[in-house]
């Protein structure tokens, strides 16, 4: 068994993912793959890449599903049915069960920033951590035989060889819809914390008691089309083209 840091990390670095704008384009998924396959630890391998049983290791995936929410807006004949695109990667939990379950100490949470990492030299590929993670956020790399997971791009965010503005996770830098945000969630004044407060950011599956650092911003409430704009359609005159032309003449005189 492995221990979590005895005291809470000074920082809680993590992601805030905005479900109001995620269009499910997978930009973050592939950017993550290309950064990390040449970065921290073993490459993210792909099995049978040009064959029938293609599969590979990804640290971040987008799940798309259809929901029929209660109290959603009703527009169009399909009513409230909508598609939700849900990006998912390691949530760097405060009470990370993947760490405490690790038999070798390979899985650990950093005291300085709360990032959960796997020391691949110590990982025996037993897979217990993946079983323990309620989010399914860890993937065993079949070629390397070690557990892979989101590192929050630990080899980018402190990397002094790249511009400061680029010291963010690859998925955040690439997201075209600006749906991914990175920062210190322990600091209540950080941009991400303020965003979580303003938008009612939520924990994923709080009942699991994992206390995830990453937060999700729910879709903004929708307003029915035209609600509050009804006045805009009140005509000056409604009797067909004749009335319209009379109005037009009046307008032209005022111009």
């Amino acid at each position: 068994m492995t221990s979590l840091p005895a005291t809470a990390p000074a920082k809680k670095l993590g992601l805030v993912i905005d479900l109001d704008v995620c269009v499910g384009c997978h930009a973050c998924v592939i950017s993550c793959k290309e950064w990390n396959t040449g970065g921290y630890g073993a490459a993210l391998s792909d099995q049978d890449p040009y064959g029938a049983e293609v599969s590979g290791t990804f640290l971040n995936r987008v799940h798309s599903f259809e929901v029929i929410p209660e109290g959603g807006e009703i527009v169009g004949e399909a009513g409230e049915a909508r598609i939700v695109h849900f990006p998912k990667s390691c949530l760097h939990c405060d009470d990370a069960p993947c760490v405490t379950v690790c038999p070798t100490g390979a899985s650990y949470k950093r005291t300085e920033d709360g990032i959960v990492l796997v020391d691949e030299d110590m990982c025996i590929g037993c897979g217990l951590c993946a079983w323990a993670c309620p989010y399914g956020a860890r993937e065993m790399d079949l070629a390397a035989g070690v557990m892979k997971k989101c590192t929050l791009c630990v080899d980018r965010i402190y990397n002094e060889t790249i511009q400061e503005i680029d010291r963010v996770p690859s998925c955040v830098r690439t997201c075209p819809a600006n749906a991914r945000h990175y920062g210190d969630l322990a600091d209540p004044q950080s941009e991400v914390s303020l965003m979580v407060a303003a938008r009612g950011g939520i924990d994923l599956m709080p009942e699991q008691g994992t206390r995830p650092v990453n937060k999700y911003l729910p879709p903004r409430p929708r307003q029915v089309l035209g609600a509050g704009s009804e006045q805009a359609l009140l005509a000056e005159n409604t009797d067909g083209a004749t009335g319209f032309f009379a109005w037009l003449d009046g307008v032209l005189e005022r111009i």
Partner: protein
Amino acid sequence: MKSKPRVELSRPVSDEVRKTTCYMCACRCGIDVHIKDGKIRYIEGNRDHPVNKGVLCAKGSAGIMQHYSPARLRAPLLRTGPRGSGEFKEISWEEALGIATDWLSEVRADDPKKLAFFTGRDQSQSLTGFWAQQFGTPNYAAHGGFCSVNMAAAGIMTIGGAFWEFGAPDWDRTRLFIMFGVAEDHDSNPLKMGIAKVKKNGARFVSVNPVRTGYSAVADNWIGIRPGTDGLLILAVVHELLKARKIDVDYLMRYSNAPWLVIDAPGTAEHGLFARDADGKPMVFETVTERVVPKGTAGARPALSGRYTLEDGRNVTPSFALLAEKYLDEKYAPEAVAAETGVAAETIRGLAAEIARTAFDEAIFIDQPWTDINGERHDGYVGRPVSFHAMRGLSAHSNGFQTARALHMLQVLIGAVDCPGGFRFEPPYPKPLEAHPTPHGRAEHFGSNKPLSGPHLGFPRGPEDLLVDAEGRPQRIDKAFSWDAPISAHGLMHMVIANAHAGDPYPIDVLFLYMANMAWNSSMNTAGVIRMLEDKDPVTGEYRIPKIIYSDAYASETVAYADLILPDTTYLERHDCISMLDRPISEPDAVQDAIRWPVVEPDRDVRGFQSVMLDLGARLKLPGFVDQRGNSIYKDYADYIVRHERRPGIGPLAGFRGTKGDRTGRGAINPDQLQRYIENGSFFSAHIPLEAQFFKHANKDYQDFAVRMGFFDTPQPVTFQLYSETLQKFRLSADGLREPFAPETHRQRIRDSFDPLPDWYRPFEEASVEGDKFPYHAITQRPAAMYHSWGSMNAWLRQIHTKNPLYVPGPICDEHGLKDGDWVHLISTHGRIKVEIARMEAVNSSTIWTWNAIGKRKGAWSLDTDVPEARKGFLMNHLIHELLPPKGDGLRWSNSDPVTGQAAWYDLRVRIEKAEAGETSEPRFPAMAEPGGKREHPEQLRYGQEWAK
């Protein structure tokens, strides 16, 4: 427990960053390609680039796998087996270019129209078009005819520009953004960035689309419209706006042809045309002096309604009066169109109210004085913060041209074109119809061993500009600019193979294609097209399309059907220019263009297609490609990009011109131009002065700027053409009132579809098939992570979409007892497919759909023959015929828009029947061999493992 210090936090990412332009789709984002140990380590968006500002989509990041794909062609190939077998031998470039030169020089001497040269998703049309013109064949176009020509042609004919490459919403200022018929594509990153901005600003985003995926999934309001009825929805909104007087009268009077007087003389050759003065200037009725004067007369206050009599006794009416009368008719009332569109009347009214309130109650004023083209000073820019974007969902219907016209009319009515918060033009647009060439390709335009007398593509001003012979017969192989499709400004690439096979209007000798998967997902009636390509003349034993040359970088399905393959490079190994002469990447505030350059060198015997075209041009001794002594002018495409001049001082690139590289737009050749682009991140950007940034169609400072930049030699202001005189001229021809007369066979069709005011009619296939036999629509959507067939062999992207289910709306599933994973037959008037389904609710209840171009032919793209793409993936194309069902008139009517020839992909009607469970989609095709021999397929990829620490 202490943290472990063993993580290396500051490893250099790469040895070098090379900045170039992406080509994983048509967006043309800037990319930083990180090179490490001579390999690509990482590709990220270029933060300085004006298109993507640092972001990059899944396709762009997957460029690594595209670049190293085993499907890359390796050397020129000559077919050895029968067409379709995939059996080739590798040959040298010298041999390949020798064969091509022999074939082409024979055609050029004998009859140049026997070459059909069609390029697909070509970003070098200013070169390929120039080449084709110098060769002298009338048969050239790119892929616009099967893509979105309705959007482009309707936009140019109405407002002098269209969406995407012509303009963009004012993302920062818009308060209401309405998108029609866009799944998750063009233009992908700018749209995603824009939608995020709209939402962050608390503005509203409305998406009109039958399917609620991608962008529609995050829309504040989704209108799940019935396919092909968008035009009716738009006209109902126009009805409501007119009724509520929510139109910008001042804007209409100043910038549109609303006041222009239309002649009312039924039964004459001038009926419905504009009254013009002796100089051909349209006339308006001046209300103060009560006289008819030419448009633009200083101080004139033109009438927008009423009926007047000219001195010669002819009756006239301002075009706006016709417009208002037409759309105020109750047949456009929301209640009247609700059933047809599938959109509730209250939703339509809500949309109209939202537009009205935002345009007028949330109007913007920017305190920036400016001068209009009449010399009048304005205190500032008035903005109507309602913006629109639309693509193929509107345009890929047989009523798409008129629908796109309707959308542009709506924008003009509320005064929202090129204003703050509205849709804004991107240089070199706006560009009036008159500044576009007319098409060339009639018999007198070409001949043996000489160039075509002018550009192939353009805009006919009336029937007199058609490319038809004295009997009215088409002159081009695709029948573009004929009575079948008079304003087919981008050609009809989807008809080329079918027409060439049928020898209608004539047989050809060489079909030369670039970057278009015509033997698979880019053709309607794929199985039929394959048969046409394989078909031989029983007498001669020769293929009916005798010689096919194809250039592509990858082993697509089409490679197997060509006789000679000229292998292209990947996008990271080539020079390219994204040119102002072609399809630039300007933004509303800036003139922009870009290049690609070889950031990695090819490791195969391949050459960039454009350099090959220059080489072929020289071998064929085409004017413009060889000097007086017959020596080639350009060493390669890079040399051409720098040294070619279309007009003196105007070349493919606008930036860093002049001997010192300090001139923009116009300037002498700069031998260091490409180096300057590379140093600048492979793009160039010049800002438009503040006093020139809005109302470009009528802004004097912008017009002067455009002349300085070299877009035009004289100012070219645009008057928005709500009423189209060009369309009316075709109607007069159809009525037998104005010469040349339309053939009897085409008259009714032209009367029905060439209304000079935007109109809606039922799409042809729906109108022609019996509704109860084919009760549903079937359409495709583009996935965000793939672009057409490009990318579906990509080792990373194919893990996102390995197969495409047929998505069936819940109500249809319930009616037919279908559940997820069931197999069905989907049947159209033309064919049937057997596929696996998935149930879906967030979709129009009569619309069945699937993802575009994921299905693959067995053996193509260097994938194993048993991959899901080939077993379960499928194409909707099998159900769509390039011809409409026979009407009993003995004619072959193309399944296209009758105005522009745009392929009507989304007109498809189907029925569904439950089928026995299967293992493989149907129809099935035999596997093709890998061209040039089997490639090594790794069992496992560990890309970047050598850098692991």
